[in-house]
């Protein structure tokens, strides 16, 4: 087994009484685009700062490329950071900003030239070498920050909400560029953001943190469709959750009794036993609306509270006497269900996922 790009082992970080990160174990593989997401204050930025060396863990150990980083100062670590504020040096031009790390590493003049040129070309800023940071747009400053970090060929590039200050359109463009860039340079990226969409669109794997605890690590698909907790289910998207109880286990699926619905089957994490209270998760896009039904029908139904047109799709808010508030997404250009009408509801068992209720939030 090769060494992990970053190996975080039982790390805890306290600031006085506040525990920012608790008992964190995380392994980031070489060449991976890895994201850490979570609400503000969840410990994601603290984790990144511990990898960079700006903060020392209170307990535990962090290794980069198999080498223990305990006690290693930031300027001796094989990682570079793209800061949220970019932190470009205002008194140096683009060329000198990018060359900063190479000059500190005492790289020869000719090589500095070549490598800075390469890095500037990589982020498409040719011709702006003599500009000052303040003469550049936000997107350009962002790219200088990227070039300044990548030019040092770090083993791991740490990115702290680098797109946070950009407007939506530019942010979407930069997401694509970042992903392409990561593929072409092959450097391990560790990306911190509170925006799950951003993380999902770029990452190979995502870690979700909350209150200093790691909730789940997995591919974006796993996180979205098979969340380990109701926090994860809610954080990465809208979730319809129904209370129920495990009835039995069949191969890798569970049979489950949903209150007010009856027996169904659903996927779920391994190890649930019969009788366990659970929540059944169905994503809005998997909840089908089956057209108007007559009053007093025997099927599962709900009344339409409200619909919102979002362009490519339509969000329908529903109220069901048995299941409470629901949300469904309808694609395509079909007729919107009329407000106040009653519609039939259904979902495929393959799209249902169980979350242990012990963990279920409010």
């Amino acid at each position: 087994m090769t060494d992990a790009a970053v190996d975080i082992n039982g790390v805890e970080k306290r600031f006085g009484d506040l525990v920012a990160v608790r008992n964190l174990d995380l392994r980031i593989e070489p060449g991976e685009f890895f994201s850490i997401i979570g609400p503000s204050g969840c410990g994601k930025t603290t984790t990144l700062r511990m990898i960079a060396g700006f903060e020392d863990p209170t307990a535990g150990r962090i290794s980069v490329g198999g080498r223990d980083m305990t006690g290693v100062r930031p300027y001796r670590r094989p990682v570079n950071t793209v800061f949220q504020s970019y932190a470009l040096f205002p008194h140096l031009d683009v060329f000198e900003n990018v060359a900063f790390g190479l000059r500190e590493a005492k790289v020869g003049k000719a090589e500095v030239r070549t490598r800075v040129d390469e890095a500037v070309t990589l982020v498409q800023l040719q011709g702006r070498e003599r500009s000052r940071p303040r003469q550049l747009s936000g997107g350009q400053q962002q790219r200088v920050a990227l070039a300044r970090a990548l030019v040092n060929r770090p083993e791991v590039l740490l990115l702290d909400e680098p797109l946070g200050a950009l407007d939506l359109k530019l942010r979407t463009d930069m997401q694509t560029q970042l992903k392409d860039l990561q593929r072409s340079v092959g450097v391990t990226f560790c990306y911190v953001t509170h925006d799950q969409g951003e993380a999902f669109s770029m990452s190979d794997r995502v870690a979700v943190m909350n209150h200093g605890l790691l909730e789940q690590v997995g591919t974006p698909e796993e996180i979205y469709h098979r969340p380990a907790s109701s926090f994860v289910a809610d954080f990465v998207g809208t979730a319809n959750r129904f209370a129920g109880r495990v009835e039995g286990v069949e191969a890798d699926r569970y049979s489950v009794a949903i209150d007010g619905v009856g027996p169904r089957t659903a996927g779920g994490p391994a190890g649930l036993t019969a009788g366990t209270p659970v929540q059944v998760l169905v994503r809005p896009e998997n909840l089908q609306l089956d057209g108007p039904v007559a009053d007093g029908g025997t099927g599962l139904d709900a009344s339409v509270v409200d619909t919102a047109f979002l362009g490519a799709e339509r969000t329908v808010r529903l109220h069901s006497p048995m299941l409470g508030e629901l949300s469904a997404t309808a694609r395509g250009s079909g007729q919107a269900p009329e407000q106040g009408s009653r519609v039939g509801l259904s979902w495929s068992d393959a799209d249902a996922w169980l979350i242990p209720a012990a963990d279920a939030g409010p």
Partner: protein
Amino acid sequence: MNVRRHPFAAGMSLLVLLFLWLPLIGVAVNSFNQQTIMAGWGGFTTHWYGLALHDQNVRTGLETTLYIAVASALLSLAIAVSGALWWRRASPKARAVYDGLIYARIILPEVVSATALFFLFLKIHFTLGLTAIVIGHTVWNSAYAAIIVQARMAGLDPALEEAAADLGATPWRTFRRVTFAALLPAIIAAGLLAFTFSFDDVVTSVFLQGASNTPLPVVILGMIRFRITPEINAIGLLVMLFTVTLMSIAVLIYATAGSLGRSGRRGNMLDIYRGR
């Protein structure tokens, strides 16, 4: 305020400007006056400038003043910069005390601090003279310098220093290439300001001079007591031009230095220091 509608304010402003500028214009004109008693205009001459520049008292006074001003400015900068570096990491309480001490030095009448130092030096048998004057000037000069340097330091984004460390710069290199480079406009401005204040000081110098050479402003004071000649006007004009030039440079550097945040504003005097 519409000046035409407030004739009183307009009249007062005019008077203030007259009282401010008339004596200065008088000094400038009389420095070229051939008539020694300056009762009237006796014709144009640059004779007094030659006299002033060759006057041994004036020359010694100037040398003494330059020595004091340079020494006091450097000492003030050392205190201000190290203070500002400490200030960033200090607790809010310690900062409040430090800031209070700065303002106390500015508010305190100069004659009080000069008297206090005079008695202190006598008590501890510290010989009065140039060193005593330098210390006396540094008492208030360092306070002005500290305010200027600290204002710049407060605008310095700590992420810049983290970025430097992240890019492999040791703490000393980070200080040199980022922190010091960012503070440089403030350091230059504060240095020039301290120099200028020291250059035209009389009160502290008189108290702490002892048996040493006399600084220029005190020399001028002595000359006026003895006899007023156009030569004094010539010296006055030269001193005035010199200090006004220095002050202008200081103000210009401080006003045009770019901001330290993410997006700077106008020009950036940090250009004069390229960080290497």
